[in-house]
C-alpha cells in the first residue's frame, strides 16, 4: 500500500472535515494526521476529543475546525464518554429518534498523555466492555500542549521539561510504554499503528477500523517539531525515518493475528532518525548504540510475532 504515491493521491477524498484555519504550530504532523483521519472517516461520524493539543487548536472560542459532530472531554474520561455516546445512539435508534439507517461511527481521540496515562483506565474499560468505538491515539511522545512534560509514551533518552537532560540525567529513563500491545492484549478485533508520513496506509487503516464492529485502537505517531526540537519542514521525513529505522514499526493486529504493514530488508540506523531532533542531542554514541540494540531486538521480536522470523 505504501507506493500508491502518484495516482492514488488524485483519487483520494478531497473534502476536508477538519478544516484549515486552526491554531496548530508550523509543521505539526499531528494536525496533518487528524486531517487525514477526518478525511477517511467522512461525515457520518461523532468525534469525542480529549483535552490536548488537537482540542485546543481546533476549538478556540467561538471558532471550530470541525464540520462533523464533536465533543470535548476531559483527559480521564474520553473513552468513557465515547462509550456513552455509542450506547446513547443505540437507545435513540431503538426508540426511533435516530432514523438514519447508516451505522454512525463513534471515534474517540486523544494524545499520548490522555491515552497512556490519565485516560488509561477508562480506555481499558471501554475496550473490555466491547463498545463499537474506534479510539485513536495521536502520539507525539510527551505532554506538548502543557509545555513538553514527559509521559509514559516518551522514548528512552528524550529530554523534556520534566525529564531534562543535564549533567546527572540523560533525559527519559524508561522505555516507551507499548500501548498498541497493551490494547491488543484486550483481545479486541483490530489494533494498528500508523503515521501521517504514509497517508494512504493511515487512511486505509482508519477505514478498515471503522468498518469493523467492536472496539478498535489506532496508534498514530505524530511528529511534533516544537516538542522534539526539530526543523518544522522535516516532520514528514522524520516520520518516515521513525518507521524505516524500526523505532516505530507499522503493523496491524487483526483478531490476534499480527501483520507487519511495512517490512524492510535493512533498517536505517537509529542515529539517522535521532540526529535531527534536539531532544536527543545530548546522547553519546554509546547511548545511541544502546538504544539501537533495544530497537533491533524489539524489531526482531515483532517480526517473529508476525511470523516473518
Amino acid at each position, binding site marked *: 500500500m505504501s507506493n*500508491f504515491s*502518484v495516482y492514488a493521491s488524485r483519487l483520494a477524498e478531497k473534502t476536508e472535515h477538519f478544516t484549515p484555519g486552526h491554531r496548530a504550530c508550523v509543521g505539526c504532523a499531528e494536525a496533518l494526521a487528524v486531517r487525514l483521519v477526518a478525511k477517511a472517516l467522512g461525515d457520518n461520524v461523532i468525534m469525542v476529543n480529549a483535552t490536548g493539543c488537537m482540542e485546543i487548536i481546533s476549538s478556540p472560542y467561538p471558532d471550530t475546525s470541525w464540520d462533523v459532530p464533536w465533543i470535548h472531554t476531559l483527559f480521564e474520561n474520553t473513552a468513557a464518554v465515547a462509550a456513552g455516546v455509542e450506547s446513547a445512539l443505540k437507545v435513540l435508534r431503538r426508540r426511533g429518534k435516530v432514523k438514519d439507517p447508516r451505522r454512525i461511527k463513534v471515534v474517540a481521540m486523544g494524545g499520548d498523555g490522555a491515552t497512556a496515562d490519565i485516560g488509561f483506565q477508562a480506555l481499558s474499560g471501554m475496550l473490555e466492555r466491547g463498545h463499537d468505538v474506534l479510539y485513536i491515539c495521536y502520539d507525539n511522545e510527551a505532554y506538548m500542549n502543557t509545555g513538553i512534560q514527559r509521559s509514559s509514551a516518551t522514548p528512552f533518552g528524550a529530554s523534556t521539561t520534566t525529564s531534562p537532560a543535564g549533567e546527572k540525567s540523560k533525559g527519559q529513563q524508561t522505555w516507551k510504554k507499548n500501548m498498541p500491545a497493551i490494547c491488543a492484549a484486550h483481545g479486541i478485533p483490530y489494533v494498528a499503528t500508523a503515521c501521517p508520513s504514509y497517508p*494512504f496506509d493511515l487512511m486505509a487503516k482508519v477505514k478498515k477500523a471503522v468498518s469493523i464492529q467492536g472496539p478498535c485502537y489506532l496508534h498514530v505517531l505524530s511528529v511534533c517539531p516544537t516538542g522534539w526540537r526539530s526543523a518544522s519542514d522535516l516532520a514528514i521525513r522524520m516520520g518516515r525515518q521513525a518507521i524505516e529505522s524500526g523505532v516505530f514499526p507499522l503493523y496491524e493486529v487483526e483478531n490476534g493475528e499480527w501483520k507487519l504493514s511495512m517490512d524492510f530488508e535493512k533498517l536505517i540506523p537509529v542515529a539517522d532518525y535521532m540526529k535531527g531532533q534536539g531532544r536527543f542531542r545530548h546522547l553519546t554514541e554509546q547511548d545511541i548504540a544502546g538504544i539501537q540494540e533495544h530497537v533491533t531486538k524489539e524489531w526482531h521480536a515483532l517480526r517473529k510475532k508476525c511470523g516473518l522470523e
Partner: protein
Amino acid sequence: MSKITITIDGEKVEATAGEMLMDVCRRKGIFIPTLCDHKDLMPYGVCRICIVEWDRGDWSKMITSCNFPVKEGQVFRTNSEKVIRERKMIMEFTLARSSKTPEIIELAKILGVESSRFPTQDEGCILCGMCIRACSEVVEANAIGFAQRGSHRKISSPFYHEATDCIGCGSCSYICPTKYIEMKEDADTRTLPIWNVTFEMAKCKKCGQKIAPKKQIEFLKKRAKNLPEGWFDLCQNCR
C-alpha cells in the same frame, strides 16, 4: 456559475446551476447511497442506487442523483416510499450478484434488505467501472476495459491476457469499492493478478527502498517535464 434554489425533501436548498444533485445532497448531509460514484471521476450512473424522485407537479420521474445537473426551482424527494421501494429492489439485484461481499451486504442492510429473493452468486466485482474509469480518466493509461456485454459483462485486460498498457500504478486496486482487485507486493515485484501483470520495482539509488514499478516511472518520465536530473532515481524521502 449562477446560484439557484432547489427543493429537497421539502426544504429549500441553495446550489450552483449545473451542479450534480448528489453533491448538493451530500453537502446538506442527506444520505444518498451509491456504489459507483467517485468525486474524481466523471459520473457514470450505473449502480442506480442513488435514484431520487423528481417532482414535476402532477407527475414525477425517477432520476439518478449522481449525474443529474440541477436547475432553478426543481423539486426532489430523496426518501419517498417509491424511492425506498425501488432502491430496495435494485439492492436486491446487486446483492444477488455479490451475495458474499461485505460492502454490499452492509449497504443492503442499511437500505433494509436482509436477503435477495433471486438466485445468488458470489461475484466480487459489481461492475461499477471505477477501475476502468480511473485508469482512463486519471491515469490515462487505458490499460483495461469491459469485455462482453449484458449479463456476461466483465472487467478485463485485453484478450484476457497480460494488460500490456498497464503501468502498475495500482489505482484500480485503490479505488475498487469491494476490494475485488488485489495488488500484491514482495521485495522486488508488484503483481496485479487480475490483469495478469507483474512489475519489477525501481529502487531508490540512495536508500534502496522501493519507489514504484519501473514501467510506471518510464510512463511518468514521458509526461513530466522540467524535473531535475535524476528525480526519478530517488524515493520521496531521499529527494
